[in-house]
């Protein structure tokens, strides 16, 4: 194993303070002499502090993370319509990775959720037309307490994709907020009501992707008209 590879193997544990003195010495010695591993170390060094934010035992109860809230709202909307939720598909992410990501989501939620319950009652404030190579979609956007409720009509999409499609609200800074997921019928059509934690005015584009995680798989895109 090269010195760099060995260092990388140990770097995570080192950042988390989990190495013994011998391995610590190996890593520190290598970091002094290797710029690339040094940069890698700098990327990771601040993470344990953020992770501590996620789960301190004496912290005040926080508002729910946006993702959780959105999942609950989405589920509620689905069940009210008598539709089954999409099957849970565990990713191939490592178990430790998933746990840390979840912890991070809580931390991020705590940092990011502001004013979720303070917006005005339902009123249509905007509209979006999305287009793609095949098909298109349009949605009426209404302000609800949790963020945005969208009545989405979709046509012309490839049917029966496992995992379906996901809607995203994109801020001008390029931040992606989930708008929920939907499936199309055999004609490639869908008519659904989804709820996103995205606040009116905080996003200016909407996208539809294949599945929840493939951000390169954008099939539809359009600008929000307020």
């Amino acid at each position, binding site marked *: 194993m090269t010195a760099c590879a060995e260092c990388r*193997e140990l770097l995570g544990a080192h950042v988390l303070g989990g190495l013994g003195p011998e391995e610590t010495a190996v890593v520190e010695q290598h970091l002094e002499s290797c710029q690339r591993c040094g940069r890698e170390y700098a990327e990771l060094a601040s993470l344990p502090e953020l992770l501590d934010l996620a789960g301190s035992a004496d912290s005040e109860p926080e508002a729910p993370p946006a993702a959780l809230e959105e999942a609950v709202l989405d589920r509620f909307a689905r069940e009210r319509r008598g539709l089954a939720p999409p099957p849970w598909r565990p990713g191939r992410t490592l178990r430790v*990775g998933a746990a840390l990501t979840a912890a991070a989501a809580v931390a991020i939620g705590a940092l990011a959720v502001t004013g979720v319950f303070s917006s005005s009652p339902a009123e249509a404030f905007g509209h979006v037309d999305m287009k793609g190579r095949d098909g298109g979609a349009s949605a009426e956007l209404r302000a609800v307490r949790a963020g945005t409720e969208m009545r989405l009509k979709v046509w012309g999409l490839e049917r029966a994709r496992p995992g379906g499609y996901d809607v995203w609200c994109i801020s001008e800074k390029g931040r992606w907020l989930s708008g929920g997921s939907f499936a199309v019928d055999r004609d490639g059509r869908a008519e659904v009501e989804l709820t996103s934690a995205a606040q009116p005015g905080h996003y200016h584009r909407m996208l539809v992707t294949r599945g929840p995680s493939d951000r390169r798989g954008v099939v539809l895109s359009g600008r929000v008209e307020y």
Partner: protein
Amino acid sequence: MREIAEALGLPLGTVKSRAYYALRHLRLVLDEMEVAR
């Protein structure tokens, strides 16, 4: 690390390397979400 390895029934080296991959993944997610460093 040793405790984690015992709890998960994994070799110690595996826990260490997974800790690295997990932190890398977390960094990526935080960067995508634009959380400040």
